[in-house]
């Protein structure tokens, strides 16, 4: 099997080299058959890499520990569901995933434009295959997923327990889909510059892919935040970590592009800006991959050999230099056809939104790469913490949410006073009512949170008004009932109303962020059985301990050998609210040196948090039980000394019984976060809006069908 995988990689590289040559020769010489052949090389690449990926996935599912990457990141005790996801937990597997997704998305993009923009598409093909060649070369020369050891080890190390969480199955493919999709607009942007065709055609062709990249990156970021909140045992969802920031930066520039491209489509303006944003987004996506895989910055995510640093730096250098060269070279063609008429216009608001998004990206870029910057200037590596990020990002986020409410209702070209009064009365009233209610509720001291709630109310008012007016007009024209009119309104203009839903989702998400960060109560407390503590208005009592071995029957079995936890009673004002069961899972280390019993619990220990989630608040708990007491340690020592290798679990049963009989005090982490669920609800609204916007409109489908039948008719006539 490994041989098949090993053959696939050089074959894939050969296909890339051929495809690059054929595409460039085809477009330079005007021989379309070569450009077409280059495009087909991308399809062939997708097939070959699909085979390679299938080989690796099968090796994981069959526990083929002859593959080094399988032995390093999987084991027989890893549940099947997580074995399948372990493919992309290693460096080699994630590089293969990157290249494979790139080939699939590139095939789709090039297939959709196969009869249009042949010159731009040919250059784009060469650039996309160039990325493919880069990643395949990394696998051939630096980190092969198909390297093997003979004889194969009997057992693997196992997937890291922290990654044994359902969203981890889809988080990396989503993020990598986002990253790879970001390279498609970059390839077409560079292609348009090379082919000297910088009108709005190429933008229309890649619009959907830019949107898909934005959507996938967004889903990936949100899933990562959810994993952090529900699995990592610290109760937070965002920590301004370098790897988190790396995924957020292309998402921000991508968001800016999705707005400014409308100005180029409608008014022929901002061409330099748009092409620069596309190139920056693609480069930031590659930098994101580089950051995760190079180990160049201290991150809670990625450490280890920095073997891939040099090739990535070279690629990023080429991308930045190439982008600047092309934009400068074609600057005459990129001149705007119109000027900004007024600062009170939709164009100006979009431009403002772009500036805020790019400023956010710059702040995050500076903070993320500050350790390298400070080392270069001062000789000492220094880093900035979350308070520094918050100081700049919070006001910018406030401004962004406000602009997302103004943009949809302000007029194109020039807004008049009458127009402003008509469009802004309802949103302003909505913000004002929110402000009065909040002040009456006595939360005046949390200024930034109040400002965010008011901005969100403004957005809600503005989007609500747009839907109301659109539906009313539709009902007046077609006489449809309200639900039908609403559906018809959205169906007729999916991009516009999908975008509005996205704005609404972002506002809801920020309400969740502002409330949960400003009004959170967190307590770290050591408790014995029967004792209790207060968290905000809640009382939490440690009712009894829990300890189970071989928890394969658990609903959320992750392969741990011992689970030690607690049953907690949560009450408010004497009334029972919830029963929580946090625990910590102990995993097999696979190290015989730790002893017959010791190795069974000597691996990673992972918190299994427990929470009572609600639309108004989450009560979140994690436990760090103490199994280092002399009585428990004595059981492990005696077990190590007396039990045969396959009977260690007997001592674990004794240990669990002893823990239940004489439970030592345990360390607990309690958090009460208001409205945190609205972050996930907001995310789902954004996803829904994104899907509405990305779906082809009926008119576009009709246009495509008409064009196809026209082409067929023309072909038939020509033959006749």
């Amino acid at each position, binding site marked *: 099997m490994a041989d098949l995988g090993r053959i696939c990689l050089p074959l894939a590289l050969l296909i890339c080299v051929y495809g690059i040559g054929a595409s460039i020769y085809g477009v330079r010489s005007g021989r379309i058959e070569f450009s077409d052949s280059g495009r087909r090389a991308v399809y062939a690449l997708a097939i070959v890499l699909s085979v390679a990926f299938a080989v690796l996935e099968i090796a994981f599912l069959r526990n083929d520990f002859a593959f080094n990457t399988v032995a390093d990141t999987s084991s027989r005790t890893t549940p099947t569901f997580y074995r399948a996801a372990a493919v992309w*937990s290693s460096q080699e597997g994630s590089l293969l995933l990157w290249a494979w997704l790139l080939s699939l998305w590139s095939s789709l993009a090039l297939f959709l434009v196969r009869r249009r923009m042949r010159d731009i598409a040919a250059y784009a093909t060469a650039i996309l295959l160039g990325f493919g060649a880069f990643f395949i070369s990394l696998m051939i020369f630096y980190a092969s997923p198909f390297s093997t050891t003979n004889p194969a080890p009997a057992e693997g190390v196992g997937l890291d327990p*922290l*990654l044994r969480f359902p969203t981890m199955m889809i988080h990396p493919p989503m993020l990598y889909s986002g990253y790879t999709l970001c390279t498609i607009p970059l390839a077409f942007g560079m292609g348009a510059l090379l082919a000297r065709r910088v009108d709005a055609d190429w933008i229309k062709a890649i619009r959907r892919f830019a949107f898909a990249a934005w959507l996938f990156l967004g889903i990936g970021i949100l899933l990562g935040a959810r994993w952090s909140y529900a699995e990592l045992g610290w109760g937070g969802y965002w920590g301004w970590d370098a790897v988190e920031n790396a995924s957020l930066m292309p998402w921000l520039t991508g968001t800016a592009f999705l707005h400014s491209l409308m100005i180029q489509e409608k008014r022929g303006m901002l061409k330099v800006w748009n092409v620069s944003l596309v190139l920056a987004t693609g480069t930031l996506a590659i930098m994101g991959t580089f950051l995760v895989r190079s180990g160049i910055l201290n991150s809670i*995510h990625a*450490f280890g*050999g920095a073997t891939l640093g040099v090739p990535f730096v070279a690629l990023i250098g080429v991308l930045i230099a190439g982008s600047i060269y092309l934009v400068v070279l074609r600057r005459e063609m990129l001149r705007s056809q119109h000027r900004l008429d007024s600062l009170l216009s939709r164009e100006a608001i979009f431009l403002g939104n772009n500036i805020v998004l790019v400023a956010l990206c710059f702040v995050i870029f500076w903070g993320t790469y500050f*350790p390298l910057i400070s080392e270069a200037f001062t000789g000492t590596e*220094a*880093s900035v913490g979350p308070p*520094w990020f918050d100081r700049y990002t919070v006001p910018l986020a406030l401004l962004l949410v406000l602009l997302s409410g103004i943009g949809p209702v302000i007029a194109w070209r020039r807004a008049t006073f009458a127009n402003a009064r008509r469009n802004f009365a309802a949103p302003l009233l909505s913000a004002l009512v929110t402000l009065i209610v909040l002040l009456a509720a006595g939360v005046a001291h949390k200024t930034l949170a109040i400002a965010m709630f008011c901005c969100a109310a403004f957005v809600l008012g503005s989007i609500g008004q747009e839907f109301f007016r659109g539906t009313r007009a539709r009902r007046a024209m077609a006489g449809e009932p309200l639900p039908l009119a609403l559906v018809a309104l959205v169906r007729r203009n999916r991009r516009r109303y999908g975008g509005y839903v996205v704005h609404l989702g972002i506002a809801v998400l920020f309400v969740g962020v502002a409330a949960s960060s400003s009004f959170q109560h967190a307590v770290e407390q050591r408790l014995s059985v029967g004792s209790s503590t207060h968290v905000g208005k809640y009382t939490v009592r440690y009712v009894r301990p829990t300890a189970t071995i071989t928890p394969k029957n658990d609903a959320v079995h992750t392969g741990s050998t011992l689970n030690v936890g607690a049953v907690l009673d949560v009450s408010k004002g004497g009334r029972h609210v919830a029963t929580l069961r946090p625990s910590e899972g102990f995993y097999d280390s696979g190290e015989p040196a730790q002893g017959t019993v010791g190795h069974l619990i000597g691996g990673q220990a992972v918190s299994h948090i427990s929470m009572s989630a609600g639309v108004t608040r989450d009560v979140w708990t994690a436990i760090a039980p103490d199994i280092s007491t002399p009585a428990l340690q004595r059981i492990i020592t005696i077990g190590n000394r007396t039990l045969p290798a396959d009977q260690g679990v007997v001592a674990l049963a004794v240990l669990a019984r002893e823990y239940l009989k004489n439970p030592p005090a345990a360390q607990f982490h309690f958090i009460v976060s208001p409205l945190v669920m609205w972050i996930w609800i907001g995310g789902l609204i954004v996803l829904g809006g994104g899907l509405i916007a990305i779906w082809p409109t009926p008119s576009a489908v009709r246009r495509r069908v008409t064009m196809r039948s026209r082409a067929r008719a023309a072909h038939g006539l020509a033959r006749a």
Partner: protein
Amino acid sequence: MNPSRKRTVRLVVALSAAVLLASALIYTSFSAASPALSPTQLVRQAQPGRSYQVTGTVVHGSVRHAGNELDFSVADRAGGTAIPVDYTGTVPDPFREGREVIVTVQKHGGHYVGERDSLITKCPSKYKTAPAGEKQNY
């Protein structure tokens, strides 16, 4: 004011604002940053009241819970100088003796107080079988 002059004024104002904001950003990043030091460097350079990010390995046998406080020592990766840290806040799951950690500390007399929730250990986007003594290299 003619349109072209108006545009120039706008551009100058916008650029000046951008330069001012960027300068503030750069200035605060240098003044608010915590230098990343090893325990040996920290012992030599630390000044009371200033934050430092210390990277090192948790010394075997040094971890103790005292109420809600977690006390441990951090040594250079290659061993040698170790500094005592009194820490409160969230302790990440992978934290244990022998692991590499990063924690932001301030010097208080002869010991170092960790900033709340600043303790991070290495997490597993990428890991491999490690050299003897340590199962995984986070």
